[in-house]
């Protein structure tokens, strides 16, 4: 493949794919058709209104060597992590009807479906509960476009903590990722995603939850030239619970854009979203979250909160938590705030002798750390705190005082 922009790339997608099992070729074909018909999003596409999407769609990227996806932790007993390419070759029918459960994807996710060459399938069988997290890293070594693809299956009553980190200092690259998690009955999956990548990223996380399952997602985004992440959970079985949390820190001319969508399709489910962000410099942060309570999802409880600190006149924050409710017996709430650092808190710290800039950094850190604090696994919290500290002024002093 030669260097190209996503825009020209979709024109050259084949109409029928040659390699792989038939179901996958059809899947890829449908994705390619959708792209040819609908194209990639523009500023006029409602869900991409605030995203400077042209800078991704029209930028020219070279193909990356491989998808740079690797498991960096020791695999806990009972958990398997296999290369998708290898599974598709050796057991072509195994993932038929399982991969891509969210239906025909659109936009960048469709591009990933059409073009991913490899990826990971992480499977936790029924009844297997592991405490040690599985950590996978997407490291982008040089400017290129990559299509990481991760498929997670957690069986009945399985438990898993998955940590994904996206790293790379290269500004000119594009990571176009799709992560799918199929969470079985009564299973518990905690999913931590840390974005430390300086380049462009578009990502999609699709979750399907069976009855009584629990899915917890915590996304930490520490800058990025352009980041757009869509996290979607489908509460498909009675009594399922999902928690979508996020913290983002935007500086310089960064643009980070978090979208969430929770579909309450079954009764007695709960969802809770807490996103917090800070924008400074000329950065832009977007939060757009929607909860859809379908007609039969009675006894739904859904909460959504987005709080932001706007630390400079030249930074921008867009926030839009919203609800669409078709059932009548539900408890829902949503709210958003954009404010400055609390003057009373700043003064209290300074009146004790803490210099103004350190007081700022302490409050900034505390604001985002409250999201990390909700992660259950202590070593994972430490890992996330370190990532945040690395991006905050006076990091060393902050580490000392927290």
């Amino acid at each position, binding site marked *: 493949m030669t260097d190209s922009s996503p825009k020209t790339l979709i024109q050259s997608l084949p109409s029928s794919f040659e390699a792989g099992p038939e179901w996958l070729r059809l899947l890829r074909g449908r994705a390619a058709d959708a792209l040819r018909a609908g194209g990639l999003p523009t500023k006029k596409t409602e869900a991409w209104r605030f995203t400077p999407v042209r800078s991704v769609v029209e930028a020219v990227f070279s193909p990356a060597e491989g998808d740079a996806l690797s498991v960096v932790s020791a695999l806990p007993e009972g958990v398997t992590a296999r290369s998708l390419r290898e599974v598709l070759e050796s057991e072509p029918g195994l993932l038929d009807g399982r991969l891509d459960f969210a239906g025909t994807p659109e936009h960048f996710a469709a591009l990933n479906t059409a073009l991913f060459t490899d990826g990971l399938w992480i499977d936790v069988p029924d009844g297997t509960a592991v405490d040690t997290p599985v950590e996978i890293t997407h490291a982008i070594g040089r400017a290129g476009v990559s299509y990481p693809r991760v498929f997670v299956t957690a069986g009945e009553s399985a438990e898993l903590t998955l940590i994904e980190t996206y790293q790379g200092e290269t500004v000119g690259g594009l990571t176009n990722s799709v992560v799918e998690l199929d969470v079985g009955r009564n299973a518990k999956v905690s999913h931590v995603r840390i974005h430390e990548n300086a380049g462009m990223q578009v990502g999609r996380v699709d979750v399907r939850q069976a009855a009584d399952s629990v899915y917890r997602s915590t996304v930490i985004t520490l800058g990025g030239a352009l980041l757009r992440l869509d996290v979607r959970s489908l509460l498909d079985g009675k009594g399922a619970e999902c928690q979508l949390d996020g913290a983002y820190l935007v500086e310089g001319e960064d643009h980070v854009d978090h979208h969430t969508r929770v579909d309450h399709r079954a009764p007695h489910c709960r969802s809770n979203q807490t996103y917090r962000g800070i924008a400074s410099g000329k950065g832009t942060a977007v939060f757009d979250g929607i909860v859809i309570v379908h007609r039969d999802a009675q006894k739904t409880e859904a909460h959504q909160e987005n709080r932001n600190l706007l630390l400079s006149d030249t930074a921008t924050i867009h926030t839009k938590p919203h609800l669409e409710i078709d059932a009548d017996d539900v408890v829902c709430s949503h709210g958003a705030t954009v404010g400055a650092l*609390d003057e009373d808190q700043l003064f209290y*710290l300074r*009146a004790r*002798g803490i210099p103004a800039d350190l007081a700022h950094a*302490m409050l900034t850190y505390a604001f985002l750390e409250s999201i990390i604090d909700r992660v259950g696994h202590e070593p994972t919290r430490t890992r996330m705190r370190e990532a945040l500290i690395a991006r905050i002024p006076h990091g060393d002093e902050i580490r000392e005082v927290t």
Partner: protein
Amino acid sequence: MLKIEDLHVEVDGKTILKGITLDIAAGEVHAIMGPNGSGKSTLAYVLAGREGYEVTKGSVTYKGQNLLEMEPEIRAAEGVFLGFQYPVAIPGVSNIYFLKAALNAIRKHRGQDPLDAIDFMKLSKEKAGLVQLPDQLTKRSVNDGFSGGEKKRNEIYQMAMLEPSLAILDETDSGLDIDALKVVAEGVNALRGPERAMLVITHYQRLLDYIVPDVVHVLIDGRIVRTGDKNLAKQLERDGYSEVRDAIQP
């Protein structure tokens, strides 16, 4: 140590302090009493350097320097401490580690080496013991979920840790039960010395039984209308402010 001369202060265009003159020498404890809204906290905030207060007239000299020109953290480093009437909660910032950062910032300003973790913890244990602040409260987020009385004890614990030269205590006794009041007073008395001065704002003569002041001032409507010794506090307790008020507004 502290010399306030004809201090006029406006907040949001409204004049709150209307010419305060006050002279506190090293070693002295002054008490300020006065009805609600008379400007006591305003005076305390102006001395500590809070933003939003405009000094329209007058001066404040502290240890021979112009206090009003200093940033709040410099005032703290120079030995000014404000015990807040309403200490704010700061979720996510640990009480003890924030205090360590504060103490070491102050030490740095004075050209001293930072205290290491062990010496700091030793000091903290000692001072927390002095005001009977439970150990676990020192480790929680600053004032987060503290009861009213716990917040006040925490202020005195911080004061004991920072060993200020000028302590301004804004109603540290409000909301304390009798036992806690004694504990807090002991904490304050432990800090009294020839090198230090205190300005104690209170509504109750009771506190002044424990922290015996050298001078008592009555602040009404932004002015000091009466100054006397500790007996003035007793008289106010007995008669209320109306007599003082009548005396100034015949």
